[in-house]
């Protein structure tokens, strides 16, 4: 069952922060600041982190559970307009498997009392599991509706 498919998706998330665009932008442009909030699992050791925030610069982050699957984020910053916009393209690997290639746009709009941030990710997400590591990760992701499924099964 090595099924290969490529699924395209776009999602947008908006937030309004009571902080000036320059401060919100700085939370993305400064390595120390970004490290303080952007990495999902604080308990995961970061084994490599390159952060070259300029057009053409690269961000490379390797993390993951201790002894577990490596999560590798590899980005190139394509467009940076200070306090207004950041565009980067990246791919994501779990172990040896590339799970997605994406284009991310972050826009910062000055609004009364703060900043409206619009985060848009356009990506192609890959499927197909031919090793256990990939299957475990895919399963982890896939099981967010497990409880509901189990309840339905019990009810049936």
């Amino acid at each position, binding site marked *: 069952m090595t099924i290969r498919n490529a*699924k395209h*998706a776009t999602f947008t998330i908006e937030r309004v922060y009571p902080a000036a665009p320059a401060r919100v932008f700085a939370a993305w442009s400064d390595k120390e600041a970004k490290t303080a909030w952007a990495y999902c699992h604080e308990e995961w050791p970061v084994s490599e982190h390159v952060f070259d925030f300029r057009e053409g610069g690269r961000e490379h982050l390797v993390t993951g559970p201790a002894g577990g699957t490596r999560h590798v984020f590899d980005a190139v910053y394509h467009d940076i307009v200070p306090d207004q916009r950041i565009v980067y393209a990246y791919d994501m690997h779990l172990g040896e498997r590339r799970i997605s290639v994406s284009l991310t746009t972050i826009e910062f709009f000055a609004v009364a009392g703060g900043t409206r941030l619009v985060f848009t990710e356009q990506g192609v997400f890959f499927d197909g599991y031919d090793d256990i590591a990939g299957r475990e990760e895919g399963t982890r992701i896939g099981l967010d509706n497990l409880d509901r499924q189990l309840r339905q099964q019990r009810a049936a």
Partner: protein
Amino acid sequence: MLNYQAPLDLAFQALADPTRRVMVERLSQGPASVSELARPLDMTLSAVVQHLAVLEASGLVRSQKVGRVRTCRIEPTALHSAERWISERRASWERRLDRLGAFLAETEPTAKPRRKK
């Protein structure tokens, strides 16, 4: 916010065992009866049934009994999951952007003299 921890534990427990991995590998090639699943395994049928129960509880595998034969199959929603990558990606960004809000509040220059936690 969805809680990923419990299903994660179930799936990892289910796949942590080499016998169950063999069963999942077999089922990834197509449905099989319990006795077909047991054939390559050096264990009793009842042990195989116990492993199957763990796999079913994790949501990875489902089985259905028709007559005297229980047929097992991979649960496709658990394994074909490009859509799941997408929903997980979105959820993780929702969490991050919430943390960005908290970070901005913590580092607010007028609210607190210290810039960094």
